[in-house]
């Protein structure tokens, strides 16, 4: 088993590049293999969020009026701001990858830091949105307090419809899971920023930058769907 360990300083690394692991024929093959693995992970991420999207869709079909009234409590400008922030962060991320491809260490570190800053802005805006909802008791059904604009009563119980709280249950679950992905992304970005600062990446070897970039774009891509579904539905 000792030959499978990845010790770049040992002779079983290729002499041309210390990052080149001995079980890969070329650096390109090694890079492509890592990338396929990342894409498989991203496909499972799509399915993870997909389950929640399907659940959201079903509940919206079941409580259409409640969902429209509940979404009026979300602040559309803040959602739009966060969309722009994430799109810009995706841009800075891809510029970081480009800088790595160009052997530009300073710019790579700079763009990674800019991406982390954008992620920080996103989570800060999310914090203000969440605290507003906690204050107004816009929460999952058990803790939901009826709002002045709520019109739908449950025909069976005569009480306020379950749909309002259901909207916020999905809201917190989906944006919460997405926010968690942002947080994980920030940690990963900080990690590769430190490694980039140490000069570990070059145009021959920048696989971690590229793969974490892919992860970051997927997080952006999920928000691209979350934003219209939660903030813009009619």
């Amino acid at each position: 088993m000792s030959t499978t360990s990845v010790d770049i300083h040992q002779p079983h690394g290729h002499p041309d590049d210390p990052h080149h692991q001995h079980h890969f024929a070329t650096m390109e093959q090694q890079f492509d293999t890592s990338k396929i693995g990342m894409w498989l992970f991203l496909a499972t991420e799509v399915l993870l969020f997909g389950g929640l999207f399907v659940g959201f869709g079903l509940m919206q079909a079941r409580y259409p009026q409640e969902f429209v009234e509940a979404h009026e409590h979300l602040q559309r400008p803040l959602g739009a701001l966060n969309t722009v922030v994430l799109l810009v962060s995706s841009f800075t991320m891809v510029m970081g990858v480009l800088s790595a491809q160009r052997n530009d260490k300073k710019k790579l570190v700079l763009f990674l830091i800019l991406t982390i800053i954008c992620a920080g802005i996103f989570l800060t805006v999310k914090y203000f949105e969440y605290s507003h909802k906690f204050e107004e008791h816009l929460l999952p059904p058990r803790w939901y307090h009826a709002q002045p604009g709520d019109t739908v009563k449950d025909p069976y119980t005569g009480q306020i419809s379950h749909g309002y709280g259901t909207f916020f249950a999905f809201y917190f679950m989906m944006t919460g899971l997405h926010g968690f992905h942002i947080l994980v992304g920030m940690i990963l970005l900080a990690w590769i920023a430190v490694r980039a600062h140490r000069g570990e990446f070059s145009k021959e070897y920048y696989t971690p930058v590229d793969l974490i970039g892919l992860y970051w774009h997927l997080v952006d891509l999920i928000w691209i769907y979350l934003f219209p579904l939660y903030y813009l539905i009619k």
Partner: protein
Amino acid sequence: MSTDQIIQHEETDADHEPHSSGVYVKTLIALLILTAITVGASYIDFGAGNVVIALFIATIKATIVALFFMHLRYDKPVNAVIACAGFLFLGIFLMFCFIDFGSRDGLRPVNWNGKMPVETAAPAPAPGAAAPANK
């Protein structure tokens, strides 16, 4: 993007991603414009069309992100196959869930106390149709 261009890119395999920032700047501008359009459209009432428009624009944006930021446009096709497979199976999941949902009626609330509707004295839902759907 024509298929000729894709084939051309597959043939020039050695050259992966674009080596200038121009493509990425244009991608970002396109995404920001589409965001402005989707936010603007949400203030106009198209009835049921609002959801369709919002999801259509979101899909365009997601495709742009995947093609340019995620490099699928320039990558080996296997990565695009994996990405499409993920969305294909999500589509199957979504479709069957909605077929199931559409075949049910009289879904009762989770906090139902066993009494018949308060406001409308509708007859009890047909047995079998709603019983397993009692969420």
